[in-house]
């Protein structure tokens, strides 16, 4: 289980008088994600999703609050948590000079997969994700879709317990997007704990068990898509989101 407890993140930015001013990228965010569950983090660009997911992935530190993975925190168990975590964002880039095989081999070694098992692991993943045709090609020579498949393979190689996806389908064609969505569904069936951020509301409605709607760094609503639609009396998450923003403004 992933527990996000009162997580806030303050950044500094420059105002028109060229003075540094603090602002909340995320403010008091609290929710949990259980095993076998896909929790969607929804919100428009600039809502604070990426900052939140970077904190969850251990790339950034929260200003206040904490993130727990089965009760473990980054302060004490960073390596143990990261050994069980996979992070994939739409902006995640890979090493262009390495071949697909070399990249997967490097990841397998980092995740301490025994040397003797590495070739078989790579072979199995390559067959599952259709990497065989470009396994010995440099990553820099691959198409966007192929690169994202290699990225999924990289996330999958150590069979993690937790997945964090940050707009992983942004900019991909319909086939590559579907490969990722199918992969996420399969991993959910294996009882994995998955956080999935997107600004495509329809996509979230399709695969998420629960959603956390974020706007301007704060949680607008937390619940199942059905609950949100019922509360806002709308038929889809997109309309629900706008209704929630309007509601917030009136309040």
């Amino acid at each position, binding site marked *: 289980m992933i527990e996000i407890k009162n997580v806030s993140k303050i950044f500094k930015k420059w105002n028109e008088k060229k003075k540094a001013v603090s602002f909340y990228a995320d403010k008091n965010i609290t929710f949990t994600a259980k095993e076998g569950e896909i929790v969607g983090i929804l919100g428009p660009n600039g809502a604070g999703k990426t900052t939140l997911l970077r904190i969850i992935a*251990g*790339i950034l530190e929260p200003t206040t609050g904490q993130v727990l993975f089965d009760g473990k925190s980054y302060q004490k168990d960073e390596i143990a948590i990261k050994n069980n975590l996979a*992070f994939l964002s739409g902006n*995640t880039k890979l090493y262009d000079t*390495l071949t697909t095989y070399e990249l997967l081999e490097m990841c397998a070694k980092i995740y301490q997969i025994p040397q003797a098992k590495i070739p078989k692991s790579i072979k199995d993943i390559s067959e599952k994700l259709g990497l065989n045709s470009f396994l010995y090609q440099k990553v820099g020579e691959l198409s966007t879709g192929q690169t994202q498949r290699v990225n999924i393979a*990289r996330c999958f190689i150590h069979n993690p317990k937790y997945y964090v996806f940050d707009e992983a389908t942004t900019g991909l064609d319909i086939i590559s997007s579907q490969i990722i969505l199918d992969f996420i569904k399969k991993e959910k069936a294996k009882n994995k704990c998955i956080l999935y951020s997107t600004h495509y509301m329809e996509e979230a409605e399709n695969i998420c068990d629960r959603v956390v709607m974020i706007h301007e760094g704060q949680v607008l609503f937390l619940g199942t898509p059905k609950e949100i639609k019922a509360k806002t009396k709308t038929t889809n998450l997109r309309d629900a989101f706008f209704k929630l923003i309007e509601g917030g403004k009136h309040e």
Partner: protein
Amino acid sequence: MNNLWIILKKELREVFRDKKSLAMMLIIPIFIPFLVFLMSFLFESQATTDITKYNEIGFAYEVTEIEKTLLESMGINIHEGTQAEMEQAFLANEVYVYVTKNNSEYTMHTKTSDESMYATTFMEQYFEEYKKVLQQNILTNANIDPDSVINVITLKEEVTKEDSYFASYMKNYAFLFIIMAITVSATYPATDATAGEKERGTLETLLTFPIKSRDIILGKFLSVSLSSIITGILSFALAFLSLYFAKDMFTIYANTDLLYNIPALIIGLLIIIIYSLFISGICIAIASKSKTFKEAQSALTPLTFISLFPSMIAFMIGMPMNNILAFVPFLNISMIFTDINNGIFNGIHIALMFISMLIYIVIILYIIIKQYKSEKVLF
């Protein structure tokens, strides 16, 4: 340790597969032999100026047969004429010195040009010889053995071998080429491994791996250091070989000792290694604060000048090494290298230099590891 090795291997793969990084590693070492031979040739032509360039001497009086014989034996071309004619020839650079005579008083008319100065030195030698010939004739005519008067003392010269000015200049500058090669070689992979990784977006991937930031930064540091050590050793070998062959080709290297003994070679190599580690650390520390490759390269450009400037000043003014200077980075390594190049092995200076450089490297690494935990550096 395992993760450190994985990161090092990844970084080395990136360095050795990147054409630009390879070019930066090899470009200056390849140029070193050309620079050594070209500079040796230029110095040689300056040091051994042909006699025919300044042997045109004017005489505003009638030169005697004795004088003519002596002047011709010294390779001097005699131009005779009136004082006005000689002065005109002198102003037109047809003669570089002209001599006037009033009884037994001779006056040399010279200029401050290089040719005139050389010609003056040459004529001074001639007048010494001429005076000796005249003295010998006077003594012989008076039935006195000239040797018993002129050579009352015997003067012998024992010359201690020392490098010529040009040879010593070349040896020091060959070392500066090595320093420059190492600095340039460190800047590119350091930029690529830090600001480049940030710009390409792969740093985020790296940070999600179960690897301590200490291992990430040490892996990067070691790969940059290794590429600059390779450049340094290659430059050292090429500079040494170039000077070795140049020694037989150019007379400016007569009496010059190169680093022929094993301890000098070992210390030379250790200096290259310690400098490579030091400069790699500095390059990573500076480049990791930049957000883009271009920004990092701009920030690192002054480093090439900073690495050379103190050494050049020390070479020019002939500054001697002392215990305090042994702590001054950049200056200490070049001064120790110059010392061992000249056969001076001061154990205290060498030890202080290595200890201080090791301390600087540890401090730099500590700063970089701390930097890599800061979000300001990462994003």
